[in-house]
């Protein structure tokens, strides 16, 4: 093939430009540590990266949610534990010792003690964590209120289930209110309804823990029971036969509170497991992301240095290629 000087310089400039471009690209790689800078450079990796980034952001959300729920549960556990402790303390030091022969004065002391217990229970039941009532179920308003001596939950009497207007609430519905949180269990809906096993229920119904309604004419609610015992103690025709059914019920319900405390403990353990699992999947995702998006520094630097070498070689070649022609040797 006939080669002319113009062709040589033309091709040389073209190649030099390519080489410089390549070097700039390699430099960018070393500088940013990234494998590619635009989706079009590596569309397949881009698809992966988009997906991994989304998943990673989701695990971040789950992490926040798990931590929130965990603190919420700890708060509930503390409060319920406090209630349980108080119940136990008052029971062992006072109620247990009630016999038919307890004197008036002593009965008054126990009654006073029970009054204190009532108000401390009420305070615990209305405990707030951040801007949510721990035992309020789905309510954002103060859940437990007093009307005279009667305790109301969300405006409904805990014993009769009636509100002030006389409407009757469905206790079963009230205690099964849920506050579901998506903790990365693969939340799905079945039509309108959430699939229960795909979400985490963080609601703590104070009504359920304290008991509601009446069985055989005796209130199930601990607060009410304590009130009843107190009333009996103060009553002029105090007798052990009259007070005993309330005390028996009290013992029963007290145990139930303890069961509930351990129940929360189990949930906290489960959360711990979820947290660890989420953290490890976060770690895995991060590793994959680095794999897809980030360049291996050793390779990036080696590539850059090689390219620099090629570029320099090309530069020094230029001098030789474009040096002399026949004209320079003519006499």
């Amino acid at each position, binding site marked *: *093939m*006939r*080669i*002319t*000087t*113009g062709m040589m310089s*033309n*091709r040389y400039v073209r190649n030099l430009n390519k080489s410089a471009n390549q070097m700039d690209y390699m430099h960018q790689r070393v500088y940013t540590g990234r494998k*590619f800078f*635009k*989706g*079009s*450079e590596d*569309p397949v990796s*881009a*698809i992966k*990266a*988009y*997906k991994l*980034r*989304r998943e990673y*952001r*989701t695990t971040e*959300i789950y992490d*926040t*949610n798990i931590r*929130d729920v965990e603190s919420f549960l700890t708060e509930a556990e503390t409060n319920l534990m406090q209630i349980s402790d108080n119940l136990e303390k008052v029971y062992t030091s006072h109620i247990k010792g009630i016999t038919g022969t307890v004197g008036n004065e002593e009965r008054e002391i126990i009654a006073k003690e029970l009054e204190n217990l009532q108000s401390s229970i009420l305070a615990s039941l209305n405990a707030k964590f*951040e*801007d*949510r*009532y721990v035992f*309020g*179920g*789905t*309510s*954002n*308003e103060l859940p437990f209120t007093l009307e005279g001596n009667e305790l109301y*939950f*969300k*405006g*409904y009497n805990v014993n009769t289930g009636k*509100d002030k207007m006389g409407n009757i*609430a*469905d206790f079963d*519905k*009230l205690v099964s*209110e*849920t*506050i*579901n949180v*998506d903790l990365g269990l693969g*939340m*799905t*809906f079945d039509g309108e309804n*959430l699939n229960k096993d795909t*979400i985490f229920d963080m609601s703590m119904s104070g009504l359920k823990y304290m008991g509601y309604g009446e069985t055989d004419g005796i209130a199930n609610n601990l607060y009410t029971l304590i009130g009843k015992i107190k009333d009996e103690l103060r009553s002029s025709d105090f007798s052990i036969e009259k007070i005993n059914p309330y005390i028996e019920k009290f013992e029963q319900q007290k145990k139930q509170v303890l069961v509930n405390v351990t129940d929360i403990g189990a949930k906290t353990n489960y959360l711990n497991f979820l947290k660890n699992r989420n953290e490890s999947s976060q770690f895995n995702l991060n590793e994959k992301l680095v794999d897809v998006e980030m360049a291996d520094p050793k390779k990036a630097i080696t590539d850059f240095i090689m390219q620099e070498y090629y570029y320099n070689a090309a530069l020094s070649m230029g001098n030789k290629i474009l040096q002399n*022609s*026949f*004209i320079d040797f*003519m006499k």
Partner: protein
Amino acid sequence: MLRPTFIGYKTATSAIKVNQYMLDIVGQNMANVNTKGYTRQRLDINSVAYSARNMKLGTTGVVIGQGVDAKGVSQFRDSFLDLRYRMESSKAGSEYVQFEALKDLENILDEIPMDDEVMYGLDAQFSDLIRQLHSLSPSDPVSEGVVRTSAEMLAQMLNNYSKEMETIRTQQLSYLENGAIVDINQISENIVKLNKQIRESNISGNPALELNDERNVLIDELSNYLDIEVDVEPLDIGGGNIIDEIVIRLRGTDVEIVNRNEYTELGIEENDNIITVNTIKRDADGNITEETDISEKITGGQVNGYLKFLNGRGEFAKSGDDFESYKGVQYYQNMLDVLANKFAGIMNELNREPVSFKADGTVDVWKEKPLFEARGGGEITAGNIKISDEWAKATDSYITNTIIQSDGDSSGAKDNILRIINSFQEAEDYEANIDTDGDGTADMQRPLFKGTFQEFFSYTATKLNLQVKSANTSYNTFSETQFHIDYARKSMSSVDLNEEGVNLLQYSKSYNAAARLMTTLDEMLDTLINRMGV
């Protein structure tokens, strides 16, 4: 037969003259070593001998040639290489425009680039909205404010993307209208001017090689804009002389861009966002008398690239037109509109609030509480989506937190918020709604994709990524081929200094030899005339 006494002088003179020409050609070649489009020239020479036809007076004995003669100057040029070069040039031109324009689009939609690990863009904004919904305290106007801001930013981002895409569309349109088309008309006009000059020169016997070079450069340029073919039409100018004239057509069609001394003016027309390229005819006063749409016949070159990019609607195409079925800017604009519309529709439906319940606890009557609406009314698109005025003005909480009937206060329930969150991970069907008859309502649907909002967006972005990559590859391939053809062309036509240097030496030697011949003849005559018989 006797040898005429002075016959040798003619041989010597012709040799001196022709070698002088040779050196002139070397000079011309060397002078133009760097001239763009210059084609190496050569002197066509042949040896001369006299002859006679009449046998009676015919020569007898030894016949010796009578020197050398220059018949003309010609060029080293292969028209087949020109043809191939121009074909590749038009392909490269089309891909170049597509690549550049799609790259601009990619700068908007591509969310791969990151600054210091900070992810931004529409995909990240969707994730942010999900995050805010997760941490939303039901019925709390303060924490709902955070959600609202995030939703507002999402809407603004869609507006922004849509606006930037429209900017790119108008930009490319103006490149076509005020760049390519103006340039084509100018080039055509210049080719016509050259055609006239070349014809005049040819008639007077001048090959006008330099003008031909100039014209070839212009045709090369034109081939980058349009897929053209050049036909040489011979013209008999009488006296047995034929000169060549050229006609330039769009390849494989009868559309003449340049016909000898006339050229066709091209123009642009926009109709319902579809761009057409027209040939324009004017009367003597310069008023347009006729416009003919030739878009379909433009199969290559930059103009083809522009038409594809500007008219391309992909699945949203109303007709089976080649340009419309290409995935150009309007395809991506439409995709974004579909996303905005779907997203807003689902959000608005999920935020409905129950007014009353049936006996079985299901909702009887709903109250609409739209979260998003179109700025200025009508269908929600990426360009006009915004959070609803009602939501923006709400002082109390606006997001419906529950749709379950309950006793007592349920302002802390969040079942509906979960439903909203869930909609971000629910696979939806996306469809292209096409209004083929232009009556304002869609009458045809084409399926686009099934997936979540974010998946749909990255599907769109990666579609673009792939398209940019393929345009880039095609462009590189065609321009590489173009370079190699040009290389082959240069190999034939460009001036080489080594060669010219050698020729310079050779021809100056020949010139000296011819001069020497003259001197020797002179000495011979001197001997014959002055010394013989003395």
